[in-house]
């Protein structure tokens, strides 16, 4: 409980500082909109505008991208375990692709894949897959030997061994890779939406932000920023934390 009091206090202090700056009149409202302007704009966008559907649109894309990445990541990890050459190839690919920011690939993506949802999913995939594989491979490489010996002892082999012993053992790495992947995907998605525009329907939150910017609706821009922050925090402290509590914390495997 104490943690929440500190957080609330800090947020209130921040809001107060913000309003003081606004009231000082030093900056144009186009740079520093007042809190109530931000609030009104956000409310209007949520209730009368398309912000909610745009938010859902972005979230849907990110979740699709995450699921796709997990499926591919698992598949790649399993094949890499079996075939050393494949593993070496993937390691090389990761070292090349991992440092590339998704946005840098954009021109290539547009040429190869176009600008529809497929292109956005491609960008999300690129953002998630490499850090996820690094983390997951790392965990699979470092499975405790004692567990392997116990599995050997009871003559557990093949798929059953993989699913009963190896994957649960690597789960902390799987989860932390996913966490990193999610935040990279969210960032990449929003940047991509700003560039691609509305890939279908009225687009996502990145497109929302972009329109606010070009139409100089700074209050609306900050409103969108607030929403993005809230989503990010909610994902980390609600969704991931919940998942962690039910798995790695419960098992005493939290790093």
């Amino acid at each position, binding site marked *: 409980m104490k943690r929440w009091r500190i957080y609330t*206090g800090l947020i209130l*202090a921040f809001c*107060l*500082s913000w309003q*003081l*700056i606004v009231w*000082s009149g*030093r*900056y*144009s*409202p*186009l*740079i520093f909109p007042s809190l109530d302007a931000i609030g009104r704009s956000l409310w209007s966008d949520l209730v009368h505008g398309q912000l909610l559907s745009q938010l859902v649109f972005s979230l849907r894309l990110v979740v699709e991208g995450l699921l796709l990445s997990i499926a591919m990541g698992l598949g790649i990890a399993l094949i890499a375990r079996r075939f050393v050459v494949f593993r070496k190839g993937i390691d090389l690919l990761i070292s090349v692709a991992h440092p590339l920011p998704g946005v840098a690939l954009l*021109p290539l993506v*547009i*040429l190869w894949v*176009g*600008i*529809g949802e497929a292109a956005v999913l491609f960008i999300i995939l690129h953002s998630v897959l490499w850090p996820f594989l690094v983390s997951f491979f790392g965990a699979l490489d470092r499975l405790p030997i004692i567990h392997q010996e116990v599995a050997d002892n009871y003559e557990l082999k093949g798929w059953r061994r993989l699913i009963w012993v190896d994957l649960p053992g690597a789960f902390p790495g799987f989860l932390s890779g996913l966490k990193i992947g999610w935040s990279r995907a969210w960032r990449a998605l929003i940047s991509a939406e*700003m*560039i*691609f*525009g*509305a890939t279908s*329907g*009225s*687009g996502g939150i990145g497109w929302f932000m*972009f*329109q606010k*910017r*070009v*139409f*100089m*609706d*700074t209050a609306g821009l900050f409103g969108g920023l607030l929403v993005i922050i809230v989503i990010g925090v909610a994902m980390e402290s609600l969704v991931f934390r919940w998942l962690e509590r039910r798995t790695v914390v419960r098992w005493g495997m939290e790093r």
Partner: protein
Amino acid sequence: MKKWIVMILIGLLVLTSGCAAQPEPEEKTLILAEQYGLAYAPLQILQAKNFLADIDPDLKLEWAKAGNTTAIREMMLAGKVDIGFMGIPPFLIARDKGMEWDIFTGLSQAPVGLVSSNPAIQGLADIQESDRIALPQPGSIQHILLAIAAERELGDAARFDQQLVTMKHPDGMSAMLAGEELNLHFTSPPYIFMELEEAGTHLVLSGTEAMGGPFTFIVGAAPKRVQEEKAESLAALKEGLQMAMDFMQDHPDEALTILSERYELEEEVLQGYLANPELVYSESVEGLDTFIDFMTRNGYLDQEITAEEVIWN
């Protein structure tokens, strides 16, 4: 409790002091932000021939690189840019939101238009929901011209608003020439000429068709602070621009050589482009009423603005 107050006060001090106004530069300077395109030619002539030296020897011009119209507006708000050149709609949008600036000169009228690589698209009505239109940004003159045409032909100004893809002209050109869904590009000289020279492209809509008449493509805008603090310099700049435009009329060969070098286009090619009758360099500002009327009617502007208010003299 006291600790909190002290921390907040320190925070405010840091925030406000760090952004103290820059000391005024010793000489008179104007920082200009331009963009790439034949519509900005007088600026190139002005730079090359240095007409301002005769008008006001103390006045120095600095040139800022800005990626797009949005960046120009933001830099101007931050005080990093004094003069910006852009289309009328982006000027109006910022003005509507409270940016205190006025148009001090027109720069050019130009043949702009919607080019397509898809033979199935002969008119606006042929554009499907899945097609994508590349243009510099939403709220640009290209977007608004498209919207005006959409209102007239299809009864819905916002019809294509969710199909826009923001791209600089060169990127838009490559994408449109290569693309499948992205097969439309609303663009301006020289790209519009280059695109129409390619096989398989055609003009779907021209700017003049959309507008229903001539209009100024690029205007020059200056914020109140420049109008008040640097009024002399502004007048000098305006005069210099007029001299540049006259020069282009009176000395076309020399102008061609200068521009050919600056735009990195061959002289014969450039000559052909410049000969286009719709490319007119003039200080007048045309079509302002039409833009204001349309944009207010369709919700792109909220405030009441009149044409007279926004012109500086």
